[in-house]
């Protein structure tokens, strides 16, 4: 009987082997999906078991998100957003099953699960204290943020405002309108949160989107700064006073149509670069684009950051000047139309790059991460993203943009005693549809502290709005707030 006993022993071995293999599979490969299954309420409990780190701004002086101890053993720590709407798209929210904005992008620091915090967490675990997360301090200037939100919301239109500190890339303002109160999404009740979320999701104005980074729009005439940059860089003998053709209308090659100037205005046949930009003629820049060719225009845009994947730390939608087509399309691309699509953040980066003597700094929102004990765990060091233009070209562009504010379409952005450089944009969306209004600017010119991009999506309200009339006043207020006036 020993031979069969041995075979039965082998059978037993196989049975235990199968059990062990299956348990190993469940405990390793499948563990993650079992843990995160929506029907597994442990995830929900675990989310509220952690004393989540706070989110602050103004060098930790202003609280944007805080954790409240409710004492409930299942849902102990709940989240509150004291400043609400103006900050929703940046700060985000912490819901039972999801998170958005910084709450999501910096989640591993906030809940303490980041590898940098392993030791700290182990100590909490051994000592039996509730796990405590790290606090995240943002680069936002809350005063400027609130003013930007108030101004933009009062237009009654959709839009976005982004302000950057040109020398570092710190994002000082990031506002998207319409916004919503994040607090109803941060309660521990799944049902209530789902109801609130679904209502926002179904809203035709799409408030859940952060228009500053999630969507791209035709930049219109603000893109003429990029075309000018390419044109000036292409030949070092060119400057703001270089004469260019400025016909009243420009026949587009390969088509039967001609490109007019805005509202059919005349630019006098010939104009200097600074004159062309000041009154925002279309024909000279369209012609410049055709002269430069697709590759040079694209290369210049890329040097300003277009097409580079960006995380601030939320990921940013990709801007692009479109696909290469014919000459006619190239002409329109050069004035910010056709398939040219930019995020408001990207246009703020263009202004910031010109302000910072041609160097575009990588934009970022996280100033520093502070451990539960207050010690700095992580901080962001300013980092150059690319050299968009030489300091000389940046100087010429700045002079041209000053003229836009002083003598041209951007007069509404003038600040008393401070020189402001800017560019308006009024982008056609579709024939017969209202245009988008843009304004990009920076100030003070001799020591730039802030670069702004204001975008107002005009499709939402019937009237026609120009960048100079609608967007420039908002940029004015934001710059003023940052500069402390």
């Amino acid at each position, binding site marked *: *009987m*020993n*031979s*069969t*006993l*041995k*075979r*039965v*022993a082998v*059978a*037993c*071995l196989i*049975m*235990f082997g*199968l*059990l*062990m293999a*299956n*348990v*190993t599979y*469940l*405990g*390793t490969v*499948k*563990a*993650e*999906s*079992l*843990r995160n*299954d929506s*029907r*597994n*309420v*442990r995830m929900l*409990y675990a989310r509220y078991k952690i004393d989540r780190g706070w989110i602050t701004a103004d060098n930790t002086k202003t609280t944007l998100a805080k954790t409240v101890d409710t004492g409930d053993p299942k849902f102990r720590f709940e989240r509150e957003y004291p400043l609400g709407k103006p900050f929703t798209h940046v700060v985000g929210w912490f819901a039972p099953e999801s998170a958005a904005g910084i709450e999501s992008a910096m989640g591993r620091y906030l809940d303490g699960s980041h590898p940098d915090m392993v030791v700290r967490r182990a100590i909490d*675990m051994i000592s*039996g204290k509730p796990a405590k997360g790290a606090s995240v301090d943002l680069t936002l200037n809350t005063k400027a943020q609130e003013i930007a939100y108030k101004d933009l919301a009062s237009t009654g239109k959709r839009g976005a405002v982004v302000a950057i500190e040109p020398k570092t890339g710190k994002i000082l303002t990031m506002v998207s309108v319409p916004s919503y109160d994040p607090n109803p999404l941060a309660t521990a009740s799944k049902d209530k949160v789902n109801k609130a979320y679904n209502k926002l999701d179904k809203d035709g104005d799409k408030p859940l989107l952060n228009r500053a980074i999630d969507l791209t729009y035709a930049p219109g005439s603000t893109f003429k700064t990029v075309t000018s940059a390419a044109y000036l860089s292409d030949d070092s003998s060119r400057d703001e006073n270089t004469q260019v053709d400025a016909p009243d209308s420009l026949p587009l090659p390969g088509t039967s149509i001609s490109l007019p100037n805005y509202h059919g205005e005349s630019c006098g046949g010939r104009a200097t670069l600074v004159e062309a930009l000041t009154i925002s003629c279309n024909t000279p820049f369209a012609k410049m684009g055709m002269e430069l060719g697709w590759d040079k225009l694209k290369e210049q845009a890329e040097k300003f950051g277009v097409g580079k994947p960006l995380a601030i730390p939320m990921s940013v939608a990709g801007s692009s000047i479109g696909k290469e087509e014919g000459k006619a399309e190239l002409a329109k691309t050069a004035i910010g139309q056709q398939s040219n699509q930019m995020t408001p953040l990207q246009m703020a980066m263009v202004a910031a790059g010109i302000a910072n003597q041609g160097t575009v700094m990588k934009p970022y929102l996280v100033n520093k991460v502070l451990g539960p004990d207050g010690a700095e765990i992580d901080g962001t060091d300013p980092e150059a993203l690319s050299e968009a233009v030489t300091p000389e070209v940046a100087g010429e562009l700045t002079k041209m943009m000053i003229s836009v504010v002083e003598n041209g379409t951007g007069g509404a952005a003038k600040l008393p005693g401070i020189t402001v450089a800017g560019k308006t944009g009024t982008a056609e969306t579709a024939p017969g549809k209202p245009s988008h209004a843009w304004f990009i600017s920076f100030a003070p010119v001799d020591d730039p502290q802030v670069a702004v991009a204001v975008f107002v999506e005009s499709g939402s309200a019937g009237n026609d709005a120009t960048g100079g009339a609608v967007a420039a006043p908002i940029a004015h207020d934001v710059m003023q707030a940052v500069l402390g006036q």
Partner: protein
Amino acid sequence: MTAKRRGAQLGMLAFAVLIVMGAYAGVGLGINGKVPSGMLGYGLGLGGLMLAAYLVLAKFAPWADPLLLPLVTLVNGIGLVMIYRLEEGGIKDASASNQLMWTALGVVMFSATLIVLRDHRALQRFTYTAGFVGIVLLVLPVLPVVGSEHYGARIWMNLGPFSLQPGEFAKLALVVFFAGYLVAKRDVLALAGRRLLFIDLPRARDLGPVLITWGVSIAVLVAEKDLGTSLLLFGAFIAMLYIATQRTSWVLIGLLLFVGGAVLAGQVFSHVQARFEGWLHASSTAVYDSGTSYQLMQGLFSLGSGGILGTGLGQGYPGLTPFSFSDFIFDAVGEELGLTGLMAILMVYALIVERGLRMSLASRDPFSKLLGGGLSFILAWQVFIIVGGVTRLIPLTGLVTPFMSAGGSALLANWMLIALLVRMSDAARRPPPQAIQDEGMTQVMQR
């Protein structure tokens, strides 16, 4: 030459008790942040019990395998701690003090078996009695008054304030019966009948016992709605039949019969079908929402949430799974002790089985080999059915996780099972009597 290794056994026993005490303290720290106040009492209680078991073993089975008692102590202790943890976590039906009491009774049964049964071969004389007792025990729950139905299975028997699962004891009686019966009949059963394809079929008239056992199994399935016990008994019978006759054809016939019976039962009885459906499509929303796979999936969530190292005792939510203290205790351990803890527990079971089978190989007579092989296999088989069930390797059938799940009958029966293995290992490892005198000095007495 084997040694008694009694010192090693005592050391390992102390180690097992120490691990359990550590786990006990861990539960207190995890839930209340302090070492439980009853810790010393529990520690002394368990330690005292096991010391008593050890002393009985040392006196009445000195040559017994030194590993069995420490291994069983460890799984029993971990089960006890887990039940304590669930009770502390607010699961009303989990009672650690009850389980400790049953463990004590289990040790009493263990000791009594060793003291009363000095030679396990005596059991061979009670072959048919054991068979009769086994069948009676199986039938008891079906009878009116004494039998009662809980949670859809009629496997309980009311006995004053307690309810017993006689099926657990039937398991032991039937393995004794199978061993005795098969030793007697194995030569006949091994006779070849016609040859079909590549296997030798047994003779048709020898199919009788197999068919009877199969019939009883299916009857258990039908009358008591207890797929687990049915599968357990039939599997053990087939394995023992194979050990005794060395014929693969018996295994195949057995498998075919059981699968056929189960499929038929699946057609007729909705609960069998539901079990299968709940296994195959466990994670599908429709099956889950209907409740069919709710418990299984909750068990898997519990196990998976533990990951590799587990949450730590008292730190998880094992109580979310219904019956986490009985059928699903394995998943509960997985959540708090992780994959690491589960592998350790499976290793302990595998070692117990391995020691049992090794002892069977070393045994000197066919009855001991068959009884030892049968008892070891039925333990392994039971672990496979229930652990495989709660980890979704096979369809879920309600069985007790030996020594760990809450439940008195199973603890008593399994402690008796271990006593039998200990008794047999004592016989197998005991050195044969030495000749006292030299060959040359042998005196031949003649009249």
